[in-house]
């Protein structure tokens, strides 16, 4: 493979990197929201 990397490839890699970062953030937030839900449920159970 030629070592030359076209600007289009660079742009593609950057976009893929950004999407991956966004993906990690979204999944992390989903997990954190489950944690939050769990904490609320613990509060509820403790109060009952």
């Amino acid at each position: 493979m030629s070592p030359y990397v076209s600007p289009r490839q660079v742009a593609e890699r950057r976009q893929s990197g950004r999407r991956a970062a966004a993906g990690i953030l979204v999944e992390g937030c989903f997990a954190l929201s489950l944690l939050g839900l769990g904490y609320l449920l613990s509060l509820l159970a403790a109060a009952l």
Partner: protein
Amino acid sequence: MLDRPRAGDWKIVCAYTGKALIGVGALHALPLATALACAEWASLVDFLAGLGATMAAGCAMALLGKTERKPSWMHGMVTGGISWLAVMVMAAIPYWLSGHYLSYLDAMFDVMSGFTTTGLTLVQDLDHLSVSLNMWRHLLTFVGGQGVIVLALSFLVKDSAGGYKLYVGEGKDERLFPSVFHTAKAIWKISLVYLGVGAAALWLAGLSIGLGPARAFLHGLWIYMAAWSTGGFAPMSQNILYYHSGLYEALTLVFFIVGSFNFALHHAVWSGNRREIYRNIETVSFATTMSLLALLGCRGLQRLGVYPDAVSLFRKGFYHLASAHTTTGYMTLYPRQLALEWGDLALLAMIAAMLVGGSACSTAGGFKGLRVGIIWKAVVQDTRRLLKPSSAVFTQGFHYHGERSLGEQQLRSAALIVIMYVAMFALIAMAGTACGYPFLDAAFEAASVTGNVGLSIGVTSAAMPAPLKLVYILGMWAGRLEFMAVLATIAFVAAALRGKRR
């Protein structure tokens, strides 16, 4: 019955099993490098022995089985089954040589437990284990989560149609890309990127809770590897309790929850389809069952006054329920505390959580959310049919990377696998009870084995009867491969022993 397998069939299975062993042999490089870096000479010798033996066995099998024939579905399944057993035998060498296991069976138990990302362990004196051996334990878990076949596919298997059949044999069937090689590579890319992010986060957390920089890094790396693969191994005997840190627990929670997601989901979200995360039947199913079981479990704990406040209820109750449901197996309690303090209701919630499990095509075990979701939808559909006029025609739908309709074949497969899981759970629970353990304890441990969870109520120990260790090993194996590969292997071997000649 099946025709008796011919030499050609054995050759294919042998060749691909050999390649899986070669892959595992190559993995020895990491603990070897670690032993060198840490000047752990005894351990270095152990790993050199393991490397030599595994490579010799793998190359011999690959050479013996050399054939131009392409694998069929049967070969894919049988290879999936047999290669995991072969890896279990060979990868146990460094464990046994270290002197931290009371028998070779115990060493094989830990390999199977690591590879299947279960997390039950029979290791002795974990707190004095060498750095390189801890590296091996956690590496096996991480790689096992991806799948040994996926590992081999990434590098060693050249035929793509056959490759897919091997991939399915290992219990995955999601095609992220048309090419199974691309799929395998994509799975690795996702795992490695997350590894970087996760290990860094845990390293920083480790520093903040008082670990030294080197230990914080190693522990962070290992804990991450076991969390992502929903394995449950940790470098200290107290598991996550060693750290006495809410921050560490919270991070492990996030990583093992994300780790329990379907690889296809990661791929979809990373490709820009971010809505999939809350529309997907598996995440919805997981969030629903997690909440219900958490409520049930915490209610059970609260009724007995086990924990003094909401924070403790969260850090002990919710944490272990989530650890069970994602089939991770991390604990911040001593196993016996579950038996002595938790009470039946909370333990039943745990058993249910362990059996239901995580997502399909992920590192998690259990029935899987997709099947639970499908079966639930089918129940809804049948109820509707019963209540509405018989002339109405309903197609029940569900969202799984796009809208799909619920077909009879899908439902049948889902239901059959769930039935097999339940049957295996019952058999393993009976085996435990037959060995003299109290029923609830035996059932809890059986659920942990069946779902590849790793939480223990105290049954798993080196003092366990050897037949029970064997039963657990087979259970972990069958559960991880989702039965098909195991049944195919048994049928293959049975046919070899008594099938009719063609």
